[in-house]
């Protein structure tokens, strides 16, 4: 098996076996969605209108929580030292770790969105477009998050710093994700415009994220 495939398999195995597995992120997602109407009031019409935005925010926060352990765990047990002296380029290893992270955090969120959307009174069309925007947008969130996770890797209480670093970077994905989700349901902007821009941001982050994160890791490990 090649080095990168071995890395992917290992990260997937560890993510599935540890703690609640992939479902802890979904649980957090559900909790945030439950808290919002308790704060906003039970007006179903209001919830339906802002539903996509709430779900996008919840997905963003759930993603953020999972990023904390991405590199920190490997740094603490000494794996990162060995990874950085391996034969595979660090950028590709980081990209593969990002892929494993998305498969175990982002993808379950996307799959959990339809039933959870019912809590916010979303109809089928709104849910369909929302799922599509999350499917395209969550990889973008993960790969941008790699940068913050790498910058905060050597810090013990890096979680809050990571959030502060990553959240501004995710703003474009959030804006166009919600815009695309809303555009399909309300006019006047056609769905395609914000959606293609969302795709562009995700593709850009898949390239930029690993390079920036690898550079940050090398810097931090000095």
């Amino acid at each position, binding site marked *: 098996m090649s080095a990168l495939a071995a890395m992917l398999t290992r990260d997937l195995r560890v993510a599935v076996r*540890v*703690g*609640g*597995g992939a*479902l*802890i992120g979904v*649980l957090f997602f*559900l*909790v945030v969605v*439950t808290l919002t*109407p*308790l704060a906003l009031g*039970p007006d*179903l019409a209001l*919830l339906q209108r802002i539903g996509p935005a709430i779900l996008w925010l919840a997905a963003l926060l759930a993603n953020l929580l999972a990023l904390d352990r991405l590199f920190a765990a490997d740094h603490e047990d000494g794996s990162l030292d060995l990874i950085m002296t391996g034969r595979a380029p660090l950028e590709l290893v980081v990209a593969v770790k990002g892929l494993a992270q998305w498969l175990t955090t982002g993808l379950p969120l996307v799959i959990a969105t339809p039933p959870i959307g*019912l*809590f916010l*009174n979303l109809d089928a069309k709104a849910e369909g477009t929302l799922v599509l925007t999350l499917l395209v947008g969550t990889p973008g969130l993960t790969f941008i998050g790699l940068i913050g996770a790498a910058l905060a890797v050597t810090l013990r209480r890096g979680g809050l710093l990571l959030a502060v670093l990553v959240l501004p970077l995710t703003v474009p994905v959030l804006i166009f994700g919600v815009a695309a989700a809303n555009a399909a349901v309300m006019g006047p902007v056609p769905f395609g415009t914000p959606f293609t821009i969302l795709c562009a941001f995700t593709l850009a982050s898949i390239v930029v994220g690993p390079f920036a994160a690898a550079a940050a890791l090398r810097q931090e490990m000095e």
Partner: protein
Amino acid sequence: MAITDLANPSRFLAFANRIIPWLGALTVVVFAFAISRAMNAPDDYQQGATVKIMYLHVPGAWLGMLGWGLMTVAALGTLVWRHPLADVAAKAAAPIGAAFTFMCLVTGSLWGRPMWGTYWVWDARLTSVLVLFLLYLGVIALWRTVEDPSRAARAAAILTLVGALDLPIIKFSVDWWNTLHQPASVLRLGAPTIDPSILIPLFISALAFTLLFAVLLLAAMRNEILRRRVRTLRLLQASTAS
């Protein structure tokens, strides 16, 4: 054999192995009876046959709450009396109670759709049952995250006791707040307000589901005891290897 002898895991395993097949058979019989009575029960003049979702929804609610009540007693058993099987019972009950709560939420949602026009409303009773469901998922996650069983047991016990505050909120939410959900019609001061022709099948259905809960609980406890034995054997294997 006194019932306290069951506190010994090995005796419990022997007891569970003997009783589970019989209890399972009894459950199937009562379910058959419940289904037949439910099918013959009268329709609601307004809702028609959909009212029969009640035979799933109400037992689901009762058993979801019973599950947490059982876990609360087990939590006291762990923290106060140090009973050896208390935490096994608590860990085993959590997924079962969660499943019944989930059944309650889903059947209620499907039942409410034709009547209220929506799958979900954020009224007091539905929200507090949803919170119960989230608490269940949280305690299950806690059990799975802490590796050492006795530490996990104490942490889960504390969470269970705090979460028990949700149970009276669920029960009385329909009285305290103005809610969309139907007010209490069975367990209330004074007689139940439901006609016996519907009430009797409801009780039989509840009995069937309670027996199911008991069978699943015993089987899950058996699994948990075996799981802990495997863990002990592995620890032994590691420490006696060269």
